[in-house]
């Protein structure tokens, strides 16, 4: 059998990688938003826990996070299936990184916007939800797109806890065919075929948003 015959197997792996990306980005960014709001809070009991979680999430390699959850937690009685463990681990990392991006976005909203909202007599709540949040999120979009691409690439780490995603499938095909160079080159190109156009898209979006702001 030639390598072409194994493309469907790689395709199935890619599909799982994409699902894993979608889940970790969706949950990660939601938690990231909560953490960003926490870190920006004036109440210390909200602020410090959020900052600690964020710094831990950014300071530890994603691979170690996966090992902690998949190999470590069972010893304290918490057992996850590999796919669930991978989703939790990658969500945690995505949440930590995205919270910093969202925080930077919120901070980039000019002070005048607050003052204008106050002058219009808007309540604090609607000032934040209707004025600050939409503008802040808008300016963090390019960074969050970049992080989504990184998250897609990070799903390849789930191979190490035997999630049958693209990298695991490539490893299997390599062991079946012994054509390691070919298999990993094709796998690399598959990852790149998604990541590279996505990068170009995020650059394009960044330019468009910059034009809108000027």
């Amino acid at each position, binding site marked *: 059998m030639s390598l072409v015959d194994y493309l469907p197997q790689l395709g199935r792996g890619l599909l799982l990688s994409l699902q894993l990306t979608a889940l970790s980005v969706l949950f990660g960014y939601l938690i990231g938003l909560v953490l960003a709001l926490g870190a920006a809070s004036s109440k210390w009991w909200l602020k410090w826990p959020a900052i600690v979680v964020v710094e831990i999430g950014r300071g*530890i390699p994603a691979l170690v996070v996966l*090992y*902690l959850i998949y190999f470590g937690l069972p010893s304290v009685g918490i057992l996850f299936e590999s796919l669930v463990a991978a989703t939790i681990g990658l969500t945690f990392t995505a949440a930590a990184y995205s919270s910093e991006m969202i925080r930077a976005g919120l901070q980039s909203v000019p002070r005048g916007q607050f003052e204008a909202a106050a002058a219009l007599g808007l309540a604090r709540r609607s000032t934040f939800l209707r004025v600050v949040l939409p503008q802040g999120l808008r300016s963090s979009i390019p960074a969050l797109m970049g992080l989504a691409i990184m998250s897609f690439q990070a799903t390849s780490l789930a191979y190490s806890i035997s999630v049958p995603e693209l*990298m695991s499938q490539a490893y299997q095909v390599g062991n079946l065919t012994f054509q390691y160079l070919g298999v990993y080159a094709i796998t690399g190109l598959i*990852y*790149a075929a998604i990541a590279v156009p996505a990068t170009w898209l995020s650059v394009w979006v960044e330019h468009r948003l910059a034009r809108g702001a000027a």
Partner: protein
Amino acid sequence: MGDALVAILLGLPMTLLVTAASFAIGLVGGVPLLLGLRSRIRFVRLAVRLVIDLIRGVPPIVWLFLLYFGIAIGSFRFNSLVAAIVGLGVISSAYLAEIYRGGFATLPRGQFEAAQALGLGRATTLGRVLAPQALRTALPSMATFLLSLLKDSSIASTIGVTEMVTAATVFARQNTATAGIVPFFLAAAVYFALSIPVAVFARRLDTRLRKAL
């Protein structure tokens, strides 16, 4: 817990070696890529752009497997350490070229024009006027990249480099009954501890540069 910590710290020099060596490759390798990105010839610019995006588009683990399992020329094969350093070095070159480019992009055009008005050559303009200033603005990003490289060096464990994560897994496997979550927790703590000084340095550098500009 003491035993686990000793076992993991024995892997620390290898983690630092992989990180430092691949960063050094990136510092040097990023320069020709940067020159390609700034070339006067459009085709060269586009080709180098594509190469950089392609390198960054492939996950590190795929790079390492490609080099370690895929490259066999005659009887030549990379050993796992060399494969990890070369793989992460190639990735670093691409990322650092992009960081260098970002540094140059912030330079005011007047610097270039002033150098020309003074009759400086192209090489002198680049080496003595533009590069030192660009490097200054690029430093915080370079420190941040060094941090992410430190964390990515953990991926070398997947091809059998005996760094910290390998040390943690081996210890966990040898002491299944007692070790539990401890070795992974300790490895995480060491990475975290390592990242603090670099993060503080980057943040301080950033504020200082902001003031200077």
